[in-house]
């Protein structure tokens, strides 16, 4: 029972990392290989700021949004114009650069963020921080979904995702729109990264596995659906916890195998 609860809560964390990946792919057709590393950067940003997490977050999110915006106008935009392969290669290069810059600037030692008194609180054997992380994940995903459905900005994003050329034709300014989407994607990643640091440890190379898990959540949930991504994240969290009951070594492998099974037998995702 405890494993089930933990699995669902962990799934929220994965979904929070994955939603930015899902959004960037859905709108810009960009698979950002550096997404996991950008999440890890969020945790390191808190470390560098040296403030308590609650005070650092209001600074980290706008900075991350700005970084996403800048990355888009400097790299992603050019890469997306340069063919199918270029975005993959450029973001992979970016991932290598980020990992090694972090190693250079903050050593390869694993770090953990101090959440203060709340990180020790528990309700019925479940850490309050995990429940908060889950609540944040659900509200971010819900907020994104609502924002995309009901605001003017969301309508423009959906129109552009559907057909860039026609969107341009009806007067949508695609460049700032894409930059804003990239900014939101990086900001959600940074938020997820801060929770990664609060709930466990991060080191400069955590980004690779983070990306893989986020990607698996997106594919298991079905491409292009944010609620699907949440469900995919929960499937991964549950698999990891249940397989971990049997053997801790098997937990990560089980997640990969579930992903492979979904890709083989239900390539459109479990919930699409």
């Amino acid at each position, binding site marked *: 029972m405890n494993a089930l609860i933990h699995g669902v809560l962990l799934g929220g964390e994965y979904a929070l990392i994955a939603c930015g990946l899902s959004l960037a*792919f859905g709108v810009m057709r*960009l*698979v*950002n*290989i550096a997404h996991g590393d950008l999440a890890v950067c969020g945790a390191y940003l808190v470390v560098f700021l040296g403030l308590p997490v609650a005070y650092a977050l209001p600074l980290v999110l706008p900075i991350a949004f700005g970084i996403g915006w800048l990355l888009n106008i400097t*790299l992603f935009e*050019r*890469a997306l114009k*340069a*063919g*199918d*392969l*270029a*975005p*993959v*290669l*450029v*973001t*992979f*290069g*970016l*991932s*290598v*650069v980020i*990992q*090694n*810059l972090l*190693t*250079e600037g903050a050593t390869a030692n694993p770090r953990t963020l101090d959440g203060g008194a709340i990180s020790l609180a528990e309700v019925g054997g479940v850490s309050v921080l995990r429940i908060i992380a889950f609540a944040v994940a659900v509200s971010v995903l819900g907020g994104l979904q609502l924002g995309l459905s009901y605001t003017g900005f969301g309508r423009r994003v959906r129109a552009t995702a559907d057909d860039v050329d026609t969107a341009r034709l009806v007067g949508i300014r695609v460049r700032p729109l894409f930059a804003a989407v990239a900014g939101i994607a990086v900001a959600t990643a940074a938020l997820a990264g801060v929770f990664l640091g609060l709930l466990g440890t991060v080191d400069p190379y955590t980004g*690779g596995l983070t*990306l*893989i898990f986020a*990607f*698996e959540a997106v*594919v298991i949930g079905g491409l292009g659906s944010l609620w699907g991504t949440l469900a995919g994240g929960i499937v991964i969290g549950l698999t990891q916890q249940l397989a971990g009951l049997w053997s801790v*070594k*098997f937990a*990560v*492998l089980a997640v*990969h*195998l579930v*992903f*492979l099974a979904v*890709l*083989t037998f239900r*390539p459109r995702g479990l919930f699409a």
Partner: protein
Amino acid sequence: MKFLALITVVLAGVPFYAGPAWERPLIDLLTLAAMASLWNLLAGFAGLASFGQQAYLGIGAYALFATGLDPLVGVPVAAVAAGLAAVPASVPLLRLSGGHFAVATWVLAEIARLTVSMATGNTGVALPAAHEPLLRQAITYWWALAVAAGAVGGILLLSRGRYGLAARAVAGDAVAAAASGVKVTWTRRVAYCLAATGTGAVGAVLFADALYVQPSSIFNVQYSVSMMFMVLIGGIRTVEGPLLGALIFFGLQRALAGYGPWYLILLGVIAILMTLFLPRGIIGKVGRPWKSRAGRSYSVRWPLWPAARRRSKDRGPRAREPS
């Protein structure tokens, strides 16, 4: 092709006239050249960037260990094992393309790594040395040369024939290729399985060279970073590009490996800049300095009028003459 054969013959004699001191660096260089060429077969010719080729390096190495064969006969067996593993793996993978394919291959490499380390432990395995050291190193060297020459020669032959035409069409625009009757998935599957076979052979050579292999090192994604770097800097979609890339990478490795993270940051930055600003690499920029088959020794960079562009024989992969 003749040039390649000549180089191969000259290099094959190295153990006789140059001695073991030359073999060591050449083994490194030849395995790099083979890995880069095979990655280019997948990314350049079939349009599929993979971050999971280390899976086949590992499968090749561990196949050599599991069969317990002497490397003298074991390298082809390891290659076949890797090729056979790639056939079922290609079924779910080839439903994807672009970034999704890249990450999914990475997941597959992680599956292979975790499976192998559950079966044999994290500490790695050693290969019993079957011959006296001098002969052993010469055998390893000849295999490295054979794998590299086989990969480059095979890709050269493939790229000239009907398959090369289909593969280039797929890499250029998969939808348009399918519309013109090219079997896209089949073309990609052939490239994927052949690249896996060759990469498996490289894995076995690396193991035979080091006599020791560890899951966390052979299945490391760093290998894919290196392959991508070599191909991008040399020139993707050309046969010579990855070879030039391997030379440059080999030099950089020797010169800068001591700088640790900064060296890798430099590789990443170069890969990004090459993709964005010099997408056809150094070969694509400077053309081929040696005399090409078409008799043109340089490429026309700023033609007087556009028609000259189309006539220029030496502008990248499209303009290769059939032999």
